[in-house]
């Protein structure tokens, strides 16, 4: 479908019959449910969506370019600002690239802390997603329930590293500082607290017949399309493709942990919902294992005073709550990277939206966008 910026500006679309103007609506950049400053140009026939074009770039900050002007340690701070809902995992992804480039060994205790933090981040992200999904469908209560439980995780983060959103706690060589004394107690308490609430989430939203009607068969993403667009994470797994970076290209502690990768086959909104709910249960199990096995010891490797990145290219991949986040680090022997490239899972997942939304209703745009669970600052960078 031809949907250029010219048509988006309100001029007749290319498919218009004589005397007929397409109905274009701008959803965003200021809209309650585009999850940030995303602009979707909708081409409508009544309530039916004929086409959709995402317009990106409203929060472009040039993070990749900025990476070329600072040391690899300094860039860790910017990775927090990519996908702000998974700061720990972003840090970890960057740390992996740097550690590989410089051949740094990460202490055992730091590995455990990283896994616990990453899975807590995944949980927090999925809680927020669940709440926002409810709100996008018109149920306001899940939003506050999701935030209530997310608050517990954020409190743990705050206690550990003093920050609640942009933590930059995981860093090349380990983590910034050791966890608090009662970290294990706090996390254990949270695991006990949250496990029953996943069932409550299911009862409040998942068991609701209206919710099921809104989810089943909407926004079907076929495995072929998902693969060709490079979708990753729960979006891909809901289409039946068994790909999880934690399994396919294991990093950190994951090879030693027992967990299953939830899969669904339908590829619709309902499948994506179920995959994420099940991922929350798996995350709880992972945290429990890592917590029980956490050894004592140092949390940071000894690093040289100046981290000179040798000549070469290194690619690290991590599984964030949204999919595969990859960092490409190109070094030229100096302290600053020659090039930093971020592969955002959100960008590829959003690419599925225009394909799977055709023929749906306006209300479905919001619902499907919500189940794709994109974070705009990670797309724009």
């Amino acid at each position, binding site marked *: 479908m031809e949907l250029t910026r010219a048509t988006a500006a309100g001029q007749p679309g290319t498919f218009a019959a004589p005397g007929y103007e397409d109905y274009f*609506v701008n959803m965003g950049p200021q809209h309650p449910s585009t999850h940030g400053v995303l602009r979707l140009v909708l081409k409508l026939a009544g309530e039916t969506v004929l086409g959709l074009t995402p317009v990106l770039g409203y929060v472009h900050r040039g993070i990749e370019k900025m990476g070329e002007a600072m040391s690899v340690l300094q860039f860790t701070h910017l990775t927090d600002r990519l996908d702000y809902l998974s700061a720990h995992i972003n840090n970890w992804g960057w740390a992996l690239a740097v550690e590989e480039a410089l051949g740094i060994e990460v202490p055992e205790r730091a590995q455990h802390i990283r896994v616990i933090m990453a899975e807590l981040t995944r949980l927090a992200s999925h809680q927020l997603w669940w709440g926002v999904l409810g709100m996008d469908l*018109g149920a306001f*209560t899940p939003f506050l329930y999701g935030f209530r439980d997310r608050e517990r995780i954020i409190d743990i983060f705050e206690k550990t590293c003093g920050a609640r959103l942009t933590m930059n706690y995981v860093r090349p060589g380990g983590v910034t500082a050791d966890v608090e004394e009662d970290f294990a107690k706090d996390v254990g308490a949270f695991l006990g607290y949250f496990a029953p609430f996943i069932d409550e989430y299911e009862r409040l939203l998942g068991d609701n017949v209206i919710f099921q009607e809104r989810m089943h068969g909407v926004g079907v993403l076929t495995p072929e399309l998902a693969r060709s667009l490079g979708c990753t994470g729960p979006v891909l797994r809901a289409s039946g493709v068994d790909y999880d970076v934690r399994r396919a290209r294991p990093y950190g502690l994951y090879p030693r942990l027992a967990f299953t990768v939830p899969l669904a086959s339908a590829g619709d909104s309902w499948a994506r919902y179920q995959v994420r709910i099940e991922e929350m249960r798996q995350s709880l199990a992972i945290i429990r294992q890592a917590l029980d096995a956490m050894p004592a010891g140092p949390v940071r490797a000894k690093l040289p005073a100046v981290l000179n990145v040798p000549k070469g290219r290194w690619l690290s991949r991590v599984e964030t709550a949204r999919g595969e986040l990859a960092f490409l680090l190109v070094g030229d022997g100096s302290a600053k990277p020659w090039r930093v490239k971020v592969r955002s899972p959100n960008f590829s997942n959003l690419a599925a939206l225009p394909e799977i939304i055709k023929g749906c209703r*306006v209300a479905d745009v919001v619902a499907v966008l919500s189940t794709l669970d994109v974070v705009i600052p990670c797309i724009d960078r």
Partner: protein
Amino acid sequence: MDNWIWRTEKIPPAVTAWLTGLLGNPLLVDLAKMAVVAALLAGFVSALALALVWIERKVAAHVQQRLGPMRVGPHGLLQTLADGLKLMSKENITPLEADRFIFHLAPLLCFAATFVAMAFIPFAPAIQAVNFNVGLVFVLGIGSVGVLGIFAAGWASNNKWSLLGAMRAGAQIISYELSATLALISVIVFAGSLDFREIVASQAAGWWIWRAPVVGFVAFVIYGIASIAECNRTPFDLVEGESELTAGFHTEYASIRFAMFFLAEFVNIFLVCSISATVFLGGYMPLHIGNLEGFNRLADLIPPWGWFFAKTSALVLVFMWVRWTFPRLRVDQLMNFEWKFLLPLSLTTLAVASVLATAGWFFFPG
């Protein structure tokens, strides 16, 4: 118990007598009565809207494990008043491209429709601003004027989101009005009157919700669902679905005009609940159980208006509970639900009710 609190039918003659003594001229007395009733109704509607907004926020807050408004007045009681004052002090913006006359008329239409309809609600014996023999039909009719206001607002705003909201409103409210009306008629065939007072009087032996076997309850549920849709509340709040249409038909409205839509919406909730309470739950009739003399005397201790408000409030609370629990339907699902399920069901209910009523097969006939 023989004073005016319990025997409210004593009030209107007393007022008439007092005004006659004061003014003398019968024409003046009539005019004064109109003024008094209008002022009372206006005051009641305003107070009601303030109270309902506060209650809604509190119910929502407690459903969501929050406190809700707490700062302005005890437990935030004056919050709505403060918000109202703030709204009134805002600039009254009319979009440049709007159809000015219709844009200004729409909120008035909405508000006037609910306000006029309130005049027909019997709060207690003889406490009803207007009573005439087809009151129910008139209330249903005047209620439909409200949708004109919504439609006009969406059209005149010259905003695409507003227009989508208005189109949804037109489709939704007109469809669901069918079911609501049919559900009410299912009871009217038992009550045998369209006069609110007579409908209430016909329930002296028992409320229609159970006296009309099964159909009474079915009709009650149908009316409940359809009236939620008519009030544009979750799960039928497509008209102003925030996450989809930003604010739907009132996106472009600010200041007092927005407040009018807002108040009309809340008064409308009370209106449909009071109709439901009057037609299905015996209105201001106290709950009497057969020959349980003790219980019946206890029930009589509560004045009739107390019963009316208790029943209506219970229904309003159910509305709020539903709103803060359910997600929203999609527009095609909404239409399917009405035309393929609710309407056939209400037609069947009406048919069965007609047979039962004609044959006299209901509890305590005659």
